[in-house]
């Protein structure tokens, strides 16, 4: 292309002129856009950082106080399983004893209904 450098120079002057003549916003437009930005800001609640999966789980279970009680109960259960007191062991030795523990039988309900 024989004319390429002249073409490039020629166009460059147009591009420079175009850049210098950029449309500039007037006060009215800026005021409208600012008002819209502020209005949108007030409509939306300020968002706290998104909670992670564990934080959501904690919330569902009742937070730290509930988790503390849960942890204590879990530890107690594990402890009983490893080293059960004598009284607890007795209930698990003879299955007939389990039946005697049942305070209300189906037979009693039938009598109640009369």
């Amino acid at each position: 292309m024989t004319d390429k450098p002249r073409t490039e120079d020629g166009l460059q002057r147009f591009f420079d002129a175009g850049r210098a003549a950029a449309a500039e916003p007037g006060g009215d437009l800026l005021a409208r856009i600012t008002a819209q930005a502020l209005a949108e800001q007030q409509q939306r609640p300020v968002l706290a950082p998104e909670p992670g999966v564990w934080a959501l789980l904690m919330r569902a279970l009742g937070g730290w106080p509930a988790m503390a009680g849960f942890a204590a109960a879990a530890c107690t259960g594990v402890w009983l399983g490893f080293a059960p007191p004598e009284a607890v062991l007795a209930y698990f030795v003879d299955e007939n004893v389990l039946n005697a523990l049942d305070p209300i039988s189906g037979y009693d309900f039938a009598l109640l209904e009369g």
Partner: protein
Amino acid sequence: MPLDAMSDLDDEALLARYAAGDASAARALTLRLTPIVLAHAARLLGDRAEAEDVAQEALLRLWRIASDWRSDEAKVTTWLYRVTANLCLDRLRKRRGVALDAVPEQADGAETVEAGMQRSARAEALQAALMQLPARQRQAVVLRHIEGLGNARIAAIMDIGPRAVESLTARGKRRLAAILLHSRAELGLSDDG
């Protein structure tokens, strides 16, 4: 934070402050971004009034997604250039009712206009010539040669590959050169590309 102190913050940091409810961030962003968006829309549309409507709409969309903005994604201006162009292209589609890659008709016998022009006249002539380009060529040429963006950013804005960007800008420039620097009669005689 006072408005002038916000000039140290980049667009993404300002947007985060905006999302957190900072009213001065709203003002700072408006002052910073409106000129960019308005100028770009005006170049794509060739109409100041429509460009103002587009600028307002593009920034409204930014305010609305501010809370969801992820700072590791695109730059705010990349996103804004894309939204602005899409809004402009929608208007152009409705205006003309033709495909956006169609070439608008040119008058025959256009004379050389380059010689003896003042800068403002050159700017007007450039805008008139830009309006004779297919919309996507116009967008690519404006982003490259007026906004001064690199091919990678233009590719991200236009959602095309870098080669396609080069092709669009090259074709756009050839067309502008033909309109602004050469008469059609000369083109007919020395048609070397």
